[in-house]
């Protein structure tokens, strides 16, 4: 559990970061909270000869709440939990962040690191897909925006180029009821299955729904069909069943120590049902 030797950089601005990235290509990597990257380096699963610590770079953290909510990449998971304006505008972030790891990890781990990492176990990517977030990237060619729903390609493979840095995420202030439901084996564990749900209710009818699942494929899964299965219904048992069936068609879990595929699919259905019911009750 000792990493290979690496150079450590701590630039003060984005130009400095980009310059190092350009010079060393995929031999260089940025580090945010380090709570995914450092364990990988210690296991020598990630070799990073040039490590760029982002913590002194100006302007990468902070939460702005308006019609569009913008969160700097270096904002810690702990900050997401303790921001009153964010809690009022988008309470699902707190509910989800509280289910990530433990307080020590959350003091260090950042939203940007969590979504840029590309580990299907991370909780924020699915949540960002549910919220239809936009990821703001900057690179040698300038700035660029990517939808969270288009960002993930495979495990640890994203649309981000090696020389690009994520600066912030933004998303429209969510409407209606919400729930982040996660089953895990213990504190500090990644999800056996997790669901992020936002539902809008008008009268007794669902007028909008957004559903995304975590750790049930090699990327987070935004299930368009599952979301649509709820719209126009009273979110009764039949509608929930339809949403679950649609979701099960979209996920592709693999067997690991958390259990075999049949178990994961079953739990995914149970977790989604609970998330929908809770979100609906809050809508």
């Amino acid at each position, binding site marked *: 559990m000792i990493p290979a030797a690496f150079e450590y950089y701590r630039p003060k601005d984005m130009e400095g970061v980009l310059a190092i990235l350009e010079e060393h290509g995929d031999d260089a990597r940025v580090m945010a909270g380090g709570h995914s990257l450092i364990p990988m380096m210690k296991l020598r699963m990630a070799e990073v000869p040039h490590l760029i610590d982002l913590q002194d770079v100006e302007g990468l953290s902070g939460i702005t709440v308006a019609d569009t909510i913008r969160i700097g990449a270096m904002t810690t998971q702990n900050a997401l939990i303790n921001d009153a304006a964010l809690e009022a505008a988008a309470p699902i972030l707190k509910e989800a962040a509280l289910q990530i790891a433990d307080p020590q990890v959350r003091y260090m781990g950042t939203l940007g690191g969590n979504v840029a990492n590309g580990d299907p176990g991370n909780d924020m990517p699915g949540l960002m897909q549910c919220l239809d977030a936009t990821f703001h990237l900057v690179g040698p060619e300038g700035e660029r925006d990517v939808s969270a729903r288009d960002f993930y390609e495979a495990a640890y493979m994203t649309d981000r180029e090696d020389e690009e840095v994520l600066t912030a995420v933004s998303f429209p202030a969510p409407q209606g009821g919400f729930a982040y439901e996660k*089953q895990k084996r213990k*504190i500090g564990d990644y999800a056996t299955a997790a669901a992020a749900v936002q539902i809008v209710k008008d009268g007794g009818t669902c007028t909008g729904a957004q559903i995304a699942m975590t750790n049930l494929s090699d990327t987070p899964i935004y299930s368009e069909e599952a979301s649509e299965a709820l719209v126009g219904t009273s979110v009764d048992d039949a509608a929930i069943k339809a949403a679950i069936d649609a979701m099960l068609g979209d996920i592709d879990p693999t067997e690991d120590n958390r*259990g075999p595929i049949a178990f994961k699919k*079953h739990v995914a259905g149970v977790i989604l049902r609970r998330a929908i019911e809770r979100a609906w009750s809050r809508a």
Partner: protein
Amino acid sequence: MKDDVTREDRIGALGGMGCERKRVEDARFTQGQGNYLDDVKLPGMLFGDFVRSPYAHARIKSINTDAAMAIDGVIAVLTAEDLAPLNLHWMPTLAGDKQMVLADGKVLFQGQEVAFVVAEDRYIAADAVELVEVDYEEMPVITDPYEALTSDVVLREDLDPKADGAHGPRDHHNHIFKWEVGDETATNQVMDDAEVVAEETMYYHRTHPCPLETCGSVASMDKVNGKLTLWGTFQAPHVVRTVASLLSGIEEHNIRVIAPDIGGGFGNKVGVYPGYVCSIVASIVTGKPVKWVEDRMENLMSTAFARDYWMKGKISATKDGKITGLHCHVTADHGAFDACADPSKYPAGFMNICTGSYDIPTAYLGVDGVYTNKAPGGVSYRCSFRVTEAVYFIERMIEVLAIELDMDPAELRMKNFISKEQFPYQAPLGWEYDSGDYHTAWEKALETVDYKGLRAEQAQRIEDFKAGKTRKLMGIGLTFFTEIVGAGPVKNCDILGMGMFDSCEIRIHPTGSAIARLGTISQGQGHATTFAQILATEIGLPSDSITIEEGDTDTAPYGLGTYGSRSTPVAGAATALAGRKIRAKAQMIAAYLLEVHDDDVEFDVDRFVVKGAPEKFKTMKEIAYAAYNQAIPGVEPGLEAVSYYDPPNMTYPFGAYVCVMDIDVDTGVPEIRRFYALDDCGTRINPMIIEGQVHGGLTEALAVALGQEIAYDKLGNVKTGTLMDFFLPTAWEVPNYETDYTVTPSPHHPIGAKGVGESPHVGGVPCFSNAVHDAFKAFGLRQSHMPHDHWRIWKTANDLGLHD
């Protein structure tokens, strides 16, 4: 002399036995001032790191160390070839087998030590490990002990397949031993004649003690004076010294072994590991101190697993539930080398306590030890030797028999307990239980939890479940356990030939304070606190004035160490008896000072008083002073004593546990609603420490029962090698524990104490497991193997059709 303090005040001022003295160790530990192995830093110290095998079974065709040696700062890369001339490429195990220190021609488990890199810096050592090129040729892997016993693949090519092993004849080249206790013919006869027989097979999965501090050592060979100093994470430092001397040829007086503070042991630190041997050799070769500390993954995959027992049982009874016989057969997976930490004559430890707390007239136990391509070990993880396996076995068999008889399992236990009058009780598989009052403890437990009420609630829950009103089932887990601890009588217990006595040496200082040194070593049990309490009561000096020291073989008397809950039963007894020797001499001094005959004074709390004239007395403090400043005719100056204690018998703590659990049938998530633990450990030295030990043991029991395992895939890869997958519970997963007690002192122990550190683990595992089983009992479940993690519980529900 005027004395207006009451006798109660004087007792209170001692801080002796029975009081809730705060742990004296904690001030240090909670402020980060402990001194652990990794805190040992010596000038010029080098660092060792292992090249380990990625394969579970492979021939080693070549090892090339050139690239590693080329790095600046790399001093040496040791392989078996380098150790062979010293005859240190293999080492004896505690179980009478031998184990490779560094791979000799082949590897037999994933993570096996292949080469030892020695470098000036820990980081350089890690880099060099990556550069050692080992050419492997993969061989067929066996991870299933049943397959091992029929396979043509010879795992241990170094052994003559026809020769006897350390425990007698071997049936097959992958067979290690057969151990049999009891009368099989008679037991089979009882089964044949029985009105009811219940049979079951259960797998007690492989797991690991996983102490927070991993294993490590620092060896420092002083070539000028010929002395070797060895610091290490040792639960038995004196035995390590003897073994190190026998292996290295260095005379024992030239070896000093020091076990500093130990960050948890739970059995992991009883054995002798290749890392210790390599650090010693490296220090001898380089003349510099060499440190080796394993990381978490190395700890989980290579040092000391626990359990891995396949247990087949048959239990017979009359129709009305009187048990008549028990048959048990174990297929024991010992991994690549038999490195079990058991007393020599007990290759399956004290598994023959498997008749439990019940009066079973006829029984038989057979154990077959088997080699596989898994890590060696077989330590007693927070239990006396294999007692957890034994108690799990009988407590599951009782539940299965209750199903067969359609009888309440609490009632079945009550009906078969050994009764109070039967003690000392001769068990059919060889042990003599010292004392017990099981009926009283069981009644107290059932009453406290309102057992009848719980069963009524459960019946209602089942109705509600069937009616679709709830998706949660309720399980009531019961366990009544009897431990066998305090190994043990030298006549039948030894480790590598060393009798399992223990020792205490006391020196009283002139001003009435004292130091006591013991052959044991605390790893969190609080010895510095409790042993001082025993002494305070025995010698009448306050516990706060008594220092307890352990772990340095140059100063402490020889002892066999701390595991198997043996410290209080054995070293605690030695402490009390050494204290009594001090008191005997103090009596002579007091009599002289008071100018009366020796027989005319008697001990009273903290002083000797003249019989019938309590106003005439000498305090122990005064006596201590007199021992050093008075010429007393016929009495040597000074006040010291040493006692080596060979226990006449084991001690047999027992307890009654009840767990109430709710299980989400759809997700497989269990929730512990209540856990009640009644422990009887005989005389209670410090109730607060007992409670802490019970909490810790139950938490490790919860871990093992509900998720903790060392699992392998078919290729022998360890699947659970990090704490992400190896379940180590946190405060979050742990329920509130209710503790309770009865007191049945041990009749043969000087202060009646039986030991408690491991009871909660031994009783806890079956209790959690029985709760899971009990929840599904009404739907037809008889047996499902641990660990009961989410998916396995879910699968149980699924197999029973509860998701349809």
